[in-house]
């Protein structure tokens, strides 16, 4: 049979003592949480930038590959036809420039 007075005594001895909230601890947690949120946002932005630059680099490589594979047309007399691999390559080059040089940014910041 449970000894009630013993249980009450155990409860009094084991219960955590009452005290006011530890403001220093709460503030420390707040700083850590804010820092973590900032780190997460910076990491997300870095991944986004990396992905876009990888896409741009792939587009540039593809452009060069297409340009090197295009043979000069037989009767072009020195002119480049409007539609062809070379034009596709130049289009991809333009795409890379557009992605890399977003409005408000300069190439120097990359």
């Amino acid at each position, binding site marked *: 049979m449970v000894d009630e007075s*013993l249980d009450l005594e*155990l409860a009094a*001895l*084991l219960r*955590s*003592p009452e*005290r006011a909230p530890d403001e220093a601890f709460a503030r420390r*947690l707040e700083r*850590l949480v804010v820092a*973590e949120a900032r780190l997460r946002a910076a990491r997300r932005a870095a991944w986004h930038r990396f992905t876009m630059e990888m896409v741009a680099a792939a587009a540039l490589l593809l452009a060069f590959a297409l340009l090197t594979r295009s043979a000069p047309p037989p009767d072009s007399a020195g002119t480049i036809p409007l539609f062809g691999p070379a034009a596709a390559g130049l289009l991809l080059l333009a795409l890379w420039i557009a992605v890399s040089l977003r409005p408000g940014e300069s190439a120097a910041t990359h």
Partner: protein
Amino acid sequence: MEGDEALAGRAAAGEVAAFTELVRRHERRVRAFLARLTRGDGADDLAQETFLKAWRVAASFRGEGSYEGWLLRIAWRLFLSSRRGRREEAAEIPERADPAAGDADRRIDVGRALARLPARERAAALLCLGEGYSHSEAARILELPLGTLKSVVARARTALADELKGQG
């Protein structure tokens, strides 16, 4: 005053102020629980990790049981992880108190008896016998079947009661 569940919802949405208020409300019990579990070794670091983890997984609190119980479950899991691969070192056990000396010394004796208990019994005693958690909520916190939890609490109570009775 806003309830824990409402604050937890706001914290899950990223409101730092709501989370800080939850920290203020519950840091006392979480830190006391960990201090008794770890016997003081690294308790505050674990408490800090507990709250950081709670912030990261804030959306996973679904209102089953109390928010404090959810925090204590995180704390218990972190405590177990911190012990993995480390042998639990014997606690420094203070001198046996003078039976005639009074409440402070009975607290030391119960603390001494608590320190000798295995971690699971220590945790169960603190939750059920100390903080008044129901068996079902304590079982949820410690991730034990209800029947097992009741046996663990009973063993802890017997050990602690023997210590107190030994003091007359």
